[in-house]
């Protein structure tokens, strides 16, 4: 696709003798949710860490809005507009929602020695942004620890969107959540995509992927097994691709097709 915001071409990543990624190509466009599926050890984490600047690829290129990029750190990719929401590392439970929301990018007022954290404005914006995402906070100084897992994910997503992310990478946002919270997070993902942000949704849950995804790429043993668009693939086919086919078929038989 030519209008892709991020285009990753033939990415390879080796850790010593271990080949984690063996030529993965992937792209995401504005206003689309591209799901990256794969079982544990398929290389999903390595891939998104390459995309978000944590790792440098051993070979291959990353194009951001058509220009070749060389991310040296997560900060570089963040500044370019790629925001990553990690499953468990997004929030600090002891700190208030506002303090978490603005962490590292606090608004200030005053000059020189009197430059200070503009806490009133920060509180106001946080409350407003959270309400847009459908979360009613008791107070902006409520500690993040008192929020549910889904709400924490939502705070992290709201934060990324507010700070102008063009691409949002969500690392298994639903894997630790209950049914209700999962649907809340999926609704948030849909809302964010409709705002024109490209979403990279990493998961190993096929149903969650099908609920919000526009395209689906399956990763297995460091390689892509192809990309399918919405409506052209069934849950069973995705499941089979992820598990690598044969063994899964026999397993599924013994489990009565419930996996």
């Amino acid at each position: 696709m030519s209008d892709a915001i991020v285009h990753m071409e033939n990415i390879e990543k080796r850790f010593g003798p271990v080949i984690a990624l063996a030529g993965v190509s992937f792209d995401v466009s504005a206003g689309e949710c591209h799901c990256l599926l794969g079982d544990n050890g398929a290389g999903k984490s390595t891939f998104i860490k390459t995309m978000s600047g944590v790792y440098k690829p051993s070979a291959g290129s990353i194009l951001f809005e058509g220009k070749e990029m060389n991310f040296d750190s997560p900060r570089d990719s963040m500044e370019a507009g790629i925001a990553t929401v990690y499953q468990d590392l997004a929030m600090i439970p002891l700190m208030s929602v506002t303090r978490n929301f603005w962490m590292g990018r606090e608004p200030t007022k005053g000059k020189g020695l009197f430059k200070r954290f503009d806490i009133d404005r920060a509180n106001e914006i946080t409350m407003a942004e959270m309400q847009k995402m459908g979360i009613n906070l008791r107070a902006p100084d409520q500690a993040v620890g008192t929020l549910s897992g889904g709400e924490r994910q939502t705070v992290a997503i709201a934060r990324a969107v507010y700070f102008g992310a063009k691409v949002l990478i969500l690392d298994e946002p639903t894997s630790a959540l209950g049914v209700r919270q999962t649907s809340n997070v999926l609704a948030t993902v849909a809302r964010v995509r409709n705002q024109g942000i490209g979403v990279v949704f990493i998961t190993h849950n096929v149903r969650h992927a099908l609920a919000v995804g526009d395209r689906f790429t399956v990763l297995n043993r460091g390689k892509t097994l192809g990309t399918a668009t919405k409506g052209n693939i069934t849950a069973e086919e995705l499941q089979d691709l992820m598990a690598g086919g044969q063994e899964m078929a026999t397993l599924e038989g013994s489990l009565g097709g419930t996996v």
Partner: protein
Amino acid sequence: MSTKSTDTVDERIGSESLLSRLMKRPELGAIAGVILVTIFFLITADSAMFTLSGVLNFLTPSSQLAILAIGAAMLMIGGEFDLSIGSMVALAGLFFSVAVVNFGMPLFMAIPATLAFAAAVGSINGQIVVRTGLPSFIVTLAFLFILRGLSLVGLKLATGGSTQLRGVREAVEGDFLVPFFSGDAFPGFFAWLASIGWIETFKNGVPKVTGIPVEILWSIALVVLATYVLLRTPVGNWIFASGGDPEAASNSGVPVKKVKISLFMLTAACAALLAIIQVLDAGSTDARRGFQKEFEAIIAAVIGGCLLTGGYGSAIGAFFGSIIFGMVVIGLTYTDFDQDWFQVFLGGMLLLAVIFNNMIRKRVTGER
């Protein structure tokens, strides 16, 4: 912080009671402790303890400890410990005394030089902790001994074999900075208060209290500044974040390493400030200065609500924790109790504080 309510209120969220709001403040425990200890001594101690001179008498060691404890609290909120601050007091005292006595430096040079020297040592602590990823507990434990040893060796070198360096008072006599770092402040004001009969005087008309000891003013200035930084500046947010979860903080763009190293420098500089005040007060320095103060400072910080795991606490709490400390040490001399109860009390207080803090943390984080 503002508590604006939203337009639509979630029906499942009950309103918070004032008590549970107060419970969230980290300094609550320390303030409650001060009240309890005050009541205890009001009942058991001689009434002289709560006269003006009695109060200043226990506030002086309190505020000396507070200068250390506020730095220690900031560092603990940032997620690290410094066990070397007691030894740092001795080493900074030596550096300062040598600068003043042996090199004849005026205070306007010697004081900044001492603070800078301490900050440099603190940054070594910080660099090692940040770069190796080792627990600061063990790194600074090593420095507890290294710095104490260096102070002893240095003192002997500077004095030709003695473990005490004298002559500081003579060396700084008449220096315009002396009144800021030693003695009592506002003597004129106190003389005036005495003259109109508001404070007690000796028979010859000299007030019993000639002013406020400068360390009290320094500790108040420090606690105000530290609280402002923690609660109202971006750096304060970075300190909480670095202590709460360094990885999440650094993923969000917080310069965690810089924050931690700066905090180590600050803690060491606080130790140096205390050393300067103590040395000017005593007119000499010795190798036992600051002995075991690191533990007292950390205990004061913990009583003040700092979590051992970082990311939570307050400078105000550490300040009040120090007051509890001074009240008990000095207060016991006004009672009929054996003074050695002090240590028992201290340990008990620490244990209570840790249990209380743990409870608070669970409440705040919603853990069950």
